[in-house]
């Protein structure tokens, strides 16, 4: 995987380059817009990390130029501006995602992986939070180093709702909405019952209760 880093700050550029190399990417680093455009023209990249605040040529300008040539390379924007406008303009201009300064290497790598995954066209069907994975095709859940466990329809519906966004807290009524269809009568304590059986099948700490707020699966990166 070849990555182009467009970043004018030497310390950030160097740190990101080292980190990407440590993560087995081939990383090139340029410091301004015109050089970045030259590099894109002469070399095939899998992903571009583009800082918006560049000297000389604005990052958004570089982005439009790349896209104007029909180049559909994956592109992540790095910005210090958290104003909504900048992000929207970046995404509208053809960026695949953005990272807000200050960021951590782990977050950057995770976002890069997500963008590359989406670009490869293979929507990864298996949901995972690093501790447990869920395969919608077979409705099987698998703990790390464990064997697949078959889930009932309702267990699967509830678990899937939680696994779509690890770390998000879902309230009882939100979970009931996912488990029961329109017009179906909701049994009292159904959510507790399903969670109890999921915990028994998988592990006690796979689903966390947040007192008074709801339930979540932890976000392990």
């Amino acid at each position, binding site marked *: 995987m070849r990555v182009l880093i467009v970043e004018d700050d030497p310390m950030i550029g160097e*740190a990101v380059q080292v980190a990407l190399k440590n993560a087995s990417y081939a990383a090139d680093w340029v410091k301004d817009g015109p050089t970045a455009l030259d590099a894109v023209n002469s070399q095939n990249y899998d992903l571009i990390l583009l800082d918006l605040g560049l000297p000389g040529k604005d990052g958004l300008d570089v982005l439009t130029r790349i896209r104007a040539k029909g180049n559909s390379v994956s592109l992540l924007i790095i910005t*210090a501006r958290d104003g909504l406008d900048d992000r929207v303009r970046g995404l509208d201009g053809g960026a695949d995602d953005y990272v807000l300064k200050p960021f*951590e290497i782990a977050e950057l790598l995770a976002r890069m992986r997500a963008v590359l995954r989406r670009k490869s066209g293979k929507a990864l069907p298996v949901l995972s939070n690093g501790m447990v994975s869920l395969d919608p095709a077979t409705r099987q859940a698998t703990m790390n180093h464990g064997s697949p466990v078959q889930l009932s329809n309702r267990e699967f519906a509830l678990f899937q709702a939680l696994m779509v966004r690890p770390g998000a807290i879902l*309230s009882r009524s939100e979970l009931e909405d996912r488990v029961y269809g329109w017009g179906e009568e909701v049994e009292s304590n159904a959510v507790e019952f399903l969670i109890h059986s999921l915990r028994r099948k998988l592990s006690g700490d796979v689903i966390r209760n947040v007192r008074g*707020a*709801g339930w979540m699966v932890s976000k392990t990166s």
Partner: protein
Amino acid sequence: MDGFKNFLNESLQRKLSVTLSLAILGVALVAGIFSFLSAFNEAYELQDDVLRQVAALMDRQHLAPDVLAGRGSREGNEESRVIVQRLGDARQAPLGVDDGGRLPLPKSLPNGLQTLRAAGETFRVLVRTTATGEQIAVAQETGFRNQIARASALRTVTPFLVLVPILLIIIPDLVRKMFRRVALLAREIDDRTEHGLHPLEENHIPAEVRPFVAAINRLLARVARSMDAQRRFVADAAHELRTPLTALSLQAELVSEAEMSDAARERLGVLRTGIERGRHLLNQLLTFARTQSVVETPKSPVSVQAVYRRVLEDLLPLAAAKRIDIGVEGQQDASVWVSEMDLTTVIRNLVDNAIRYTPDGGRVDLAVSTIGDTIVLTVKDTGPGIPEAEYDRVFDPFYRSLGGDRVGSGLGLSIVKAISDRIGAEVRLAPSIADAQSGLCVSVLIPMRRVLPGMEGAGSDSVHCQQAPGTRS
């Protein structure tokens, strides 16, 4: 005297009322005197004419004054009597003057009108030489004439006497009405919050005041510009600081992957905590700068429970690291007309503070309730609390309680306060454990419908902050 001058100079309205009243009084006085005198003179001349006509009548008809004397004069007022007599007739009258007798006049007088004293009274006398060559005198008492003239003069002055007091009552009222627009303008400026820097309406302002309003508007514009520049500077500075801070934290992250001794790793941990602090402070600065600029109008109500869940999602790791039992009390939800970002920022800062200041193993509770027309959001912790004397000051940016060794940006409560003021909510502080005077319970009182800032919420302090269940372990 000086006191009165000051009293006048302080208020244009008073000055105008008093000067206008004085001017009217002066003019009325002069006009009154003038019309009194002219009416008086006219009445006088009218009576002189009567004397002349009587004399002419006597002359033409060749009437002897004796014919008239003592006849018919008894009727009516003896003072209004016109006396006619021949001059030089020295016969002493049998009767006094008042009873219709003759006047003791000198034997000869020049022809024409004159005022004489006779028999102890003043008379107006017309002397005329008749065709027969004798002199006759036609006389009338001046006292009576004056009385008539005065009465008729007073009648002409009466309207002035009645109308001037009415005018004096009307004038201050009129002046007050004229100045009402100015008073309204002042009230409008008074009612503004510090964010209300839009220009004043100039269209319906009197021309005399308009230059002031225009000047105030120019000043407002300058203040707005400078405040804007200041806000932009804070935001820009925070943005600019983000880049070096990112560089710093990335380098520290790389260093942590290298081989190093335990002591070095420990120091690196401290260093990264420091960088994290800087990052937190920067984000808080940016949030604070943002709370003071744009006012977002919510398009739909926000569920408080949903915001609680979102905040808990973000802050659970922080709470878990300190083994703090954090959660929501009660099932009740409420919808508030506040932008989601504002509400999330308020709750996040309150919960973040609660977690920071609560010792390991403590407890943080979130709750929402509706009391009357007010939605009450509470965040309770089992930390040390804030001394009541400092309640007012903890909202100041960068204010820190004495003896606090905690790490925070010093902006959390300022952000909460700034947003609350903007959305018309009220923030109240109380100890969460009343007996021990410890722990902090922060209530945010949000009116159900959006009302102007300054409207008072309902309820009393103690309603929302019941004693926290004793779960300190």
